[in-house]
C-alpha cells in the first residue's frame, strides 16, 4: 500500500479560553486570556517566584455525557480527554450512542472500531489523583492522632497555632480504590478507547511538552501506511493540586514567568521582556484523523490535510535546549521532506513559543535559518499558557483552523520582538496553503506537523 492521504475531519478542545473548539477558536482570534493570581492558600506552604497561572473555566462534565462514577473513577486529565474526543467525533459527523448503560460506555455508529486507533499525549498523566490520594495516605491518620493529643493539652497560644497549622493540612475525605488506574498515564488513551469502544491500537505518548504533537504524528503515520483508517489523536493535561506542588515543580526549575512589572502582559513569548512560560491548569484537544477516501465516502467535513511529520531527539540535556538547535532543525527538515514540499513554502508557523529566554531565542534563530522570512508566526501559549502534554494538540487544532479560515490569532503581548520575523500582531485575512506546528520537550524530544489547506 502506498502513501495514503490523511485529513482532519473533526476537532474537540477544552482549554483556559474555551470549553469547546468553536469557543477556543473565536476567543483566540479575540486575543482572550484566562490569567489569574495563584491561589492565596498555596502561600501557606512555600514561596513562589511566579505568581500567575492560566485557569480552566468551570466544567460540568455531565454536559459531555459523563456520570458521577466517571468523575470518581477517572483523573481529571482523562475526563478532559474524553470530553475533547466526544466533541471531535461528533463534529466529524459520527453519531455516538449508549452501548452499555451500567458501564457508562458508548459506541460510535459507522466507525469500524478495529480500524480506528487512539493516540494520546500527556506529560504527567493522572498526577492530580496521585497527589490527592497521597495527602490522604500521609495525613488522615496522623492528623487524628495529633488532634487527639492537642485536646489533652491546656489552652495556649502555641496550642491555637498548632490547631491552625493542622487545619491547613487538608486531604481528600476518602482514599480512592481506583487511584492506580487513575494515575497511570496510559489511562488517558485507555479511557477514550473504553468510553467509545474503539478497539484498534491504543497508545499513550509521554513526551512532556511535545506529547500532543507526537501523538498526532504517529496517528498520521499509522493511517498513511494503512495500519488503520481513522485515528482519535490528541493530548491532555491537568496540572493542579491543593498545595501547589505541581506549580512549584516548574517554579523551582525557574521556567515560569517571573517578571511582574505588569502582570497583564507578563506572558509575552518572543518579546524582549519575556521571563518564562505561563503555567496552565491544563486542557485537552483531540483531532479526528482519517484516510481521505474513507472521509469522502461518508461525506465527513474536511478541515485540513496532514502532509508530513518529523521527530528527532536532542540527546543533549534533560531540561536544557541544545544551543545550536540542530536537533530541531533536523526535525523540521524531516517534516517538510515527508510533506514533499520545501520549507520556504510554509506560510504560517504555530511556534512552540513558550516565553522562556532560551526557547524563544533558539526557536527564532532556527526559523530565520530555515523558513521563508515572510511566514506568519504566532504562539498559542501567549494566550493560554503552557498546557504541557495538551499544548501540541491544541496548537495543531489552531493551525488546522487557521488554514481553513485563512486567518491567525495574534502573538499576544508582543511589543518588542526579539527577532525580525513576521510575528502576528493583527488578525487579518491571509491566503494560507501550508502551515507548520512544532513542539519541543523536556528530555529533548522535538516534533512537528506540516498541514495543507484542503481542496488545493
Amino acid at each position: 500500500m502506498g502513501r495514503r492521504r490523511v485529513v482532519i475531519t473533526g476537532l474537540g478542545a477544552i482549554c483556559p479560553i474555551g470549553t469547546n473548539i468553536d469557543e477556543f477558536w473565536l476567543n483566540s482570534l479575540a486575543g482572550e486570556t484566562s490569567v489569574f493570581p495563584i491561589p492565596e492558600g498555596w502561600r501557606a506552604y512555600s514561596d513562589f517566584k511566579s505568581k500567575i497561572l492560566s485557569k480552566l473555566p468551570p466544567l460540568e462534565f455531565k454536559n459531555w455525557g459523563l456520570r458521577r462514577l466517571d468523575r470518581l473513577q477517572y483523573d481529571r486529565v482523562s475526563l478532559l480527554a474524553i470530553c475533547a474526543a466526544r466533541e471531535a467525533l461528533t463534529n466529524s459527523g459520527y453519531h455516538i450512542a449508549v452501548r452499555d448503560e451500567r458501564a457508562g460506555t458508548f459506541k460510535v455508529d459507522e466507525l469500524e472500531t478495529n480500524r480506528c486507533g487512539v493516540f494520546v499525549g500527556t506529560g504527567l498523566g493522572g498526577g492530580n489523583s496521585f497527589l490527592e490520594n497521597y495527602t490522604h495516605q500521609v495525613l488522615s491518620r496522623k492528623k487524628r492522632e495529633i488532634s487527639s493529643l492537642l485536646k489533652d493539652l491546656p489552652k495556649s497560644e502555641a496550642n491555637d497555632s498548632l490547631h491552625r497549622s493542622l487545619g491547613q493540612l487538608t486531604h481528600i475525605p476518602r482514599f480512592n480504590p481506583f487511584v492506580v488506574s487513575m494515575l497511570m498515564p496510559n489511562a488517558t488513551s485507555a479511557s477514550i478507547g473504553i468510553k467509545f469502544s474503539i478497539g484498534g491500537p491504543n497508545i499513550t505518548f509521554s513526551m512532556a511538552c511535545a506529547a500532543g504533537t507526537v501523538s498526532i504524528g504517529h496517528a498520521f503515520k499509522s493511517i498513511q501506511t494503512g495500519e488503520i483508517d481513522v485515528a482519535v489523536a490528541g493530548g491532555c493535561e491537568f496540572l493542579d493540586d491543593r498545595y501547589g506542588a505541581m506549580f512549584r515543580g516548574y517554579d523551582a526549575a525557574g521556567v515560569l514567568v517571573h517578571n511582574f512589572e505588569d502582570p497583564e502582559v507578563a506572558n509575552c513569548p518572543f518579546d524582549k521582556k519575556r521571563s518564562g512560560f505561563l503555567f496552565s491548569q491544563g486542557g485537552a484537544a483531540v483531532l479526528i484523523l482519517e484516510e481521505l477516501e474513507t472521509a469522502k465516502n461518508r461525506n465527513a467535513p474536511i478541515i485540513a490535510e496532514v502532509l508530513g511529520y518529523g521527530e528527532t531527539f536532542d540527546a543533549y540535556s534533560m531540561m536544557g535546549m541544545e544551543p545550536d538547535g540542530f536537533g530541531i532543525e533536523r526535525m523540521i527538515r524531516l517534516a517538510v521532506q515527508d510533506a514533499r514540499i520545501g520549507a520556504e513554502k510554509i506560510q504560517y508557523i504555530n511556534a512552540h513559543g513558550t516565553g522562556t529566554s532560551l526557547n524563544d531565542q533558539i526557536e527564532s534563530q532556527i526559523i530565520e535559518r530555515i523558513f521563508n522570512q515572510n511566514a506568519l508566526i504566532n504562539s498559542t501559549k501567549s494566550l493560554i499558557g503552557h498546557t504541557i502534554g495538551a499544548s501540541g494538540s491544541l496548537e495543531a487544532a489552531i493551525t488546522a483552523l487557521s488554514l481553513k479560515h485563512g486567518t491567525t490569532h495574534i502573538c499576544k503581548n508582543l511589543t518588542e520582538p526579539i527577532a525580525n520575523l513576521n510575528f502576528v500582531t493583527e488578525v487579518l485575512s491571509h491566503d494560507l496553503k501550508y502551515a507548520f506546528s512544532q513542539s519541543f520537550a523536556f528530555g529533548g524530544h522535538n516534533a512537528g506537523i506540516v498541514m495543507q489547506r484542503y481542496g488545493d
Partner: protein
Amino acid sequence: MSFKTYDEIQAKVCKVVEEVLAISIDEIDLDASIEKQLAPDSMDQVRLYMVLEDEFDGSIPDEDLKTIHTVRDIINYISRRLGVET
C-alpha cells in the same frame, strides 16, 4: 444533605444502586444478595460503596463491609451511622 427518616435514606440508597448498577428502582430487591445477585463483579461492589460514601459523605470501614450483604443491610447500616431510627 441531612437525612431525617429511614424512608429518605432508603430512597437515596436505592437511587445510588440504580445509578451504579443500572437496576431500575422498582426492580431492586432489598433482600437480594449484593455479592451473588446484584453485583457479582467485585469491581461493581467497589463502585457501589464508593458512590455511597460520596453520596453520604462518609467512609465505610472494611470491617463494617463484612456485615453488609443486601441493600437492606446498607440502609440499616447508614441509618445507624446517621442516628436515624430503623
